[in-house]
């Protein structure tokens, strides 16, 4: 029953940068445990949409709902309060294309900082949690290293651990493998696959068509700020109905 109700919902999200409309009435409902992939050509607004989900980018208008938390943004509505932003971001983890670890903190400190400052966990508890997560991403021996001493793939795994440390209900991935060699990217995808199998609700902006097809429960094709097609990945990617989807898929899949 609970799985039937939309857990993560974005309704009529519109975003203008100046006079340019980058998101045009985008809506999406994600059930708990679902993995959603968003694919599409560069500049389509995929990342902007993802960044609207944790309000790193404020939509021009629209409604967001994550779990029990709902917020409507637009003319006639108040801005999100500090408390609302904190609640939202504590429950929504995000992994960036460029990792964005804090270079002046060790791997351990990167993972503990928000546990202590945002969740108010003690030193021991947060360290324990960090070690469990580091073990899970295979980097227990890097706990005391600075990010500068870690490879790109290692940094991205630490970044995933940093997000998971807050026990988020949803994870957002913004092209997490795009800055990595394909081989290293595969390691990250393996970690994400494992997360998906454990039931994490995930929204993934990606150019990894294999991941979108095999791991995703649903795929959304975004073009020029609109969702042009969505549904079962095998269906959408195997037999696209929209002309623009066909063009995009034939370009990225080389057929």
């Amino acid at each position, binding site marked *: 029953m609970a799985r039937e109700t939309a857990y993560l919902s974005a309704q009529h999200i519109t975003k203008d940068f100046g006079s340019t409309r980058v998101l045009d009435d985008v809506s999406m409902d994600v059930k708990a445990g679902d993995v959603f992939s968003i694919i599409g050509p560069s500049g389509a607004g995929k990342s902007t949409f993802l960044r609207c989900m*944790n309000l*790193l980018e404020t939509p021009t208008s629209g409604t967001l709902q994550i779990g029990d938390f709902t917020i409507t943004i637009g003319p006639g509505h108040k801005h999100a309060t*500090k408390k609302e932003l*904190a609640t939202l*971001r*504590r429950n*929504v*983890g*995000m992994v*960036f294309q*460029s990792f*964005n*670890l*804090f*270079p*002046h903190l060790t791997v351990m400190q990167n993972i503990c*900082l*928000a546990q202590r*400052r*945002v969740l108010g966990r003690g030193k021991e508890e947060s360290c324990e949690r960090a070690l469990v997560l580091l073990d899970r991403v295979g980097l227990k021996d890097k706990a005391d290293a*600075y*990010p*500068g*001493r870690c490879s790109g793939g290692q940094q991205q795994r630490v*970044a995933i651990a*940093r*997000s998971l440390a*807050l026990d988020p209900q949803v994870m957002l991935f913004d092209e997490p493998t795009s800055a990595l060699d394909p081989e290293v990217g595969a390691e990250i995808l393996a970690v994400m696959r494992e997360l998906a199998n454990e039931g994490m609700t995930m929204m993934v902006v990606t150019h990894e068509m294999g991941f979108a097809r095999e791991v995703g429960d649903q795929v959304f094709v975004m073009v020029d700020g609109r969702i042009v097609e969505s549904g079962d990945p095998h269906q959408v990617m195997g037999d696209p109905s929209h002309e623009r989807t066909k063009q995009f898929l034939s370009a990225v899949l080389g057929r």
Partner: protein
Amino acid sequence: MEISALWYIAQGVVWTVAITVLSFLFGALGGVGVAGARVSAHRWIRIMARGVVDLIRSVPPLVWLFIVYFGLAELGLKFSPFQSAIITFSIIASVYLGEIYRGGLAALGAGQIEAAKSIGLGRPDLLVRIIAPQVLRTVSPSMATYGIGLLKDSALASTIGVVEMTFRANQVAQNTGQGLTAFAFVGVVYLLLSAPVGIWTRRFDARLREKYLVA
């Protein structure tokens, strides 16, 4: 020249260092406000901050010193020479250090701030734990350069009667007629004060680069 005359000059170092260190500290704090105003989300704050920065930088420090010491006295705000020097140099340092911070902030990039926000850190934590340590590291060489400049500018305080080193060297030069010795001596003391700052900053910077393995 007698040793006692040189000793008299050297004692002025207390005032020289006091002006430099206090103004630098106040400037380092004030600079945070200046940098914050320069990158404020509110357009009018940015415009006003820009105006104030340009105004303060366009007028020579000596003129500001006279405005604070002689000018404000006319308006009934009387400060001692030492207080006037601290006020003037603190304000000027706030502006210059603020601009240095702003440069470091631009170099930090949006990714760090977004990552901090995405894990729910509030503004105070963002500033103290993410932005400040990284910006201070990148701008520490520029700050040291400015500090050395401030040390030299502190000699201007002699013009309003602060009995710091240059003022005393001038007194000795007038009394003995041995200007070359007196001023060469203060020159050496300024050199001895500034050299360690430069050396220490270069070491500090190199050590942090090695630790974090960053460019």
